């Protein structure tokens, strides 16, 4: 058999206990997932299916109610393991620090020496195309660039697992495609395992080695589709015929689930 899974989920479930005015909420699971080291895995699913919850569980920001999750063989149980980086949907750049200090932030707190910090941050600035903006403040940057700062902050820590929660959600289509290319470059450069949550089917189909399609809440994997793309790929594959077939297959799986989740929302309206 191949080398052990980098991230392993078995029967992972998340149930929010009942509290005043709200019954128990079965948000996610049970989920089984094997991520191979260095693979790029995307998760798509209707709104409210628990995609973000899944990411939080793997990141160690929340603990599963049942089942087990491990990273590099060690259990993740509500504590963030070493070697994990997360890029959130919202802008997490710190407005009171300039771009350089933003990127250096995590590294400095992990105990990096001044020269090491300088060299790693310079490299990240170069890699993410932020070199001229090192002294600028987030308020002066566009949304896309601020997201790049957040990615650079993660990159500089050399994570072995990178989790991204709809990182390009707030950006326009062209910027998203270009950011997708950057993400692929990042993936090849760092050789990290990547888990990307997205609601955009084309984004998932273009970027990932495998795409997990989630059901409506409580989210479970309906299917995992392999894309078969070569490692060296970029946004130009969207024009290939295989791409069209892939996205239509994903949508076929997803369409019924989306309708069902809309029905949920309307029922609670």
């Amino acid at each position: 058999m191949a080398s052990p899974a980098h991230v392993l989920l078995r029967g992972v479930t998340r149930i929010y206990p009942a509290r005043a005015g709200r019954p128990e909420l079965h948000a996610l699971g049970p989920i089984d997932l094997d991520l191979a080291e260095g693979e790029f895995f995307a998760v798509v699913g209707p709104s409210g299916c628990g995609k973000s919850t899944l990411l939080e569980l793997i990141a160690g920001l929340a603990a599963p109610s049942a089942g087990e999750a491990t990273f590099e063989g060690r259990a993740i149980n509500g504590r963030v393991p070493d070697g994990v980086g997360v890029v959130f949907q919202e802008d997490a750049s710190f407005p009171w620090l300039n771009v350089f200090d933003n990127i250096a932030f995590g590294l400095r707190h992990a105990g990096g020496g001044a020269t090491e910090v300088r060299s790693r941050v310079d490299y990240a600035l170069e890699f993410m195309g932020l070199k001229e903006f090192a002294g600028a403040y987030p308020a002066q940057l566009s949304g896309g660039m601020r997201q790049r700062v957040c990615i650079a902050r993660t990159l500089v820590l050399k994570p072995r697992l990178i989790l991204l929660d709809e990182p390009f959600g707030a950006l326009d289509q062209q910027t998203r495609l270009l950011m997708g290319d950057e993400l692929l470059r990042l993936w090849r450069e760092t050789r990290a395992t990547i888990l990307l949550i997205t609601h955009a089917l084309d984004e998932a189909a273009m970027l990932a080695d495998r795409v997990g399609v989630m059901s409506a809440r409580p989210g479970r994997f309906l299917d995992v589709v392999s894309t078969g793309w070569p490692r060296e790929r970029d946004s130009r594959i969207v024009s290939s015929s295989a791409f069209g077939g892939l996205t239509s297959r994903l949508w076929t799986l997803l369409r019924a689930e989306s309708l069902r989740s809309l029905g949920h929302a309307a029922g609670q309206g």
Partner: protein
Amino acid sequence: MKWRDPLLLIAVVVGLWQLLYLYAGDSALSSPVTTARTLAIMLQDPRFLVHVRETLLAFLQGFLIAVLIGLAIGFALGAHAFSGEVGEPILVALYSIPKVTLYPIILLIFGIGMPAKVAFGAIQGIVPIALFAMNAIRNLNPVYARTARVLRLSPVAWTKELLLPAALPEVITGIRVGFSLTLIGTLLGEMFGAQRGLGYLLMQAMGLHHMPRLMALTLLLVLFAATVNALLLALDRRLHERG
């Protein structure tokens, strides 16, 4: 140019003042020139400066206490979500009552003198400082807390490097408002029950119907309050723009 508008405003105000003086006469007002001259003379009189010192001391001590206690209460209520929910309406209610009604009680507790004056100012300033500090913590962008956990920051590092810088703009706004209200409170207390200080002098000038003195004192107080507030406002705006 940035300076043009405020200068224009000041010129208009002084102009209106002069017109009003010409209309109302010496018994009702003092002209801008006379007022300025009177103020200049007063500022060189050591006996006057004793009163300035008295008010300033009372005000600064009151402000310091308001900041310390206000921030303590605000941070505590902000950090502990449930306490904040319980306490906020109480703070808001305290903010809107005329705290001058408590002044006789303060005099009963402290007697006439400096401690009472400090209290007059402090009770006015505590509430806004606490309210703004509380909201600064409560309204903290939740993504910062999650980022801190992902970066595995210690609680100390999280507080020092994330929480405080993020909360600073709102905290400064509260301190700015608290500054103004503490000043007003100190002055009000001196006008109500004191034997020294600028508020007392104000009442004295009123009793003696000494218009130049009365207006010079008013002018001094307005200039001081407006200038410091303008400075704090500039700081406030800089912090908020930066985010």
